[in-house]
């Protein structure tokens, strides 16, 4: 059973969003980290890069596979979690605690297209 947190928004490609004012904190879900297995590298954008909802902004690499990270929102990257550069395993340890990027949203209405916890739970079949 994967951990799902109430109050967050979820994408079909297994990213979560926590809204802090106009900023979206983005990470991957516990389900995603379990599917990937031991994560060996997190490819992240740079601060000030623009990201677009539905398009890739980076990638996760594990022993098993590499998987694109898809941005759930559009906007400008204001912070990246630099700790993941040297310790990508943090994503395995706690996927919700260890966010990946923070985005200053250009269109907060995009959040409406995302799932809530209950819908995401159904999405992953748990």
């Amino acid at each position, binding site marked *: 059973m994967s951990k799902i947190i109430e109050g967050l928004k979820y994408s079909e490609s297994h990213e979560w969003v926590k809204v802090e004012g106009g900023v979206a904190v983005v990470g991957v879900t516990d389900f995603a980290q379990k599917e990937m297995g*031991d994560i*060996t590298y997190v490819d992240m954008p740079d601060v000030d890069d623009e990201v677009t909802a539905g398009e890739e902004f980076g990638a996760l690499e594990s*022993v*098993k596979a*590499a998987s694109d990270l898809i941005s759930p929102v559009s906007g400008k990257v204001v912070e990246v979690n630099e700790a993941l550069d040297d310790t*990508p*395993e943090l994503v395995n340890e706690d996927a919700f605690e260890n966010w990946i990027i923070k985005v200053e949203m250009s269109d907060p209405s995009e959040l409406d297209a995302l799932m809530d916890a209950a819908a995401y739970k159904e999405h992953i079949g748990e």
Partner: protein
Amino acid sequence: MKYYDKLVFELSQKGRVGYSLPVNRFPAAPELPNELKREVSPDLPEISEPDVVRHYTNLSQMNFGVDTGFYPLGSCTMKYNPKVNEEVAALPGFTGLHPLMHAGLTKGALKVYQEMDKALAAITGMAAFTFDPCAGAHGELTGLMVMRQYHMNRGDLARTKVIVPDSAHGTNPASAAVCGLEIVEVKSLENGRVDVEALKPLLDGTIAGMMMTNPNTLGLFETQIKEITELVHAAGGLMYYDGANMNPLMGVVRPGDMGFDIMHLNLHKTFSTPHGGGGPGSGPVGVAAHLVDCLPDLRVSGFHGNFGVILRAYAYILMLGKQNLKKVGQYSVLSANYIKECLKDAYKLPIEGVCKHEFVFDGLINDGAHDEVHGATTLDVAKRLLDFGFHAPTIYFPLLFHQALMIEPTETESKETIDAFIDVMHKIAAEAAEDPRILQDAPHGAPIKRPDETAAARNPILKFKDAR
């Protein structure tokens, strides 16, 4: 197996010389200017001849290859490499060649290229081949550059996307990305084939083409291939054939007849040249008649690719001839289906039906899990196989299944070898049901047990000096 893990540098003794040069009868060359000289001498091993010979012989005995045992590594086509190929490649007329020789002195080699061009065109239904690419992925990139060139020549610059099935070899999207194209994924159906209904809405004026492997990575023939190629052509796109899985089709079906416009072949797979351990490979690219003009004028490798590999493949084609090339395809399919049917009582077969040269199990049916013990995984099965002297199959690919175990026996194994493998796979399944720990502690006999792949990926040690 005798364990041996020394590095040649560790055998080095300062000042030891393992050669003697004749006396120099020529005047000494002028000294190099200082700015061209190294500041520090290169760190080269200094060893006697017997020590060098023992070192590499010992290392070679740590190796496993098709010459030492059964190697059912799915997707890699580890068929036996006939020794006659080596004899031909060792002929002095070929070994004495130099790529910068005057054309008048290289006519034999040029004829090999011409004859191979004709032979591969006949086998695949393409019009012409380029032999420059040195491997499969290199061929993919070259082929996609041809695709891009075709659209550019027509002034159609909007076509920037390539469709790739979700079951594709990882090299397909990677090659498309390197070529500057955007990747669009198309889903597979429950039966493992491309979902034609999901493909249709993707086809518009932005599609440069579609890449496919047929049979696909599950070893299944794409039965709707004609419809797929017609749809993509109708939308103005080109079809790219990834030749990695050409073996079962050899002499039976031709990619050109299925509607493919561009393709590569892996001579080191289908045409029996040595591979594994990183090469050398050869990935010639073939194109249909309407694309011959787009074949690269620009060279994509030095000196027309790996000539020695192309030569070996030519020997293979001549030795087999048309009749026996067909048997390659047929026997590779027979061997794979025989193993699949014999083992599906012990291993989960996610998609029933006839496969081509390879197939995928999704782990053990009875993995032995109960309250106290975890079940045995595909990794455990693969590790246990090593104890019985078999190379492990490909594992955890394709990603469509969680416990994928991909077996490709090829056409060159005897029934006795295949039966021995089936017996061992049954024995391993029985062990797992009884006590999965036997598998989880495997390999029991190999010099290296279970390397920590995660630590290796997170902190790769890339220099021998850092390894000790």
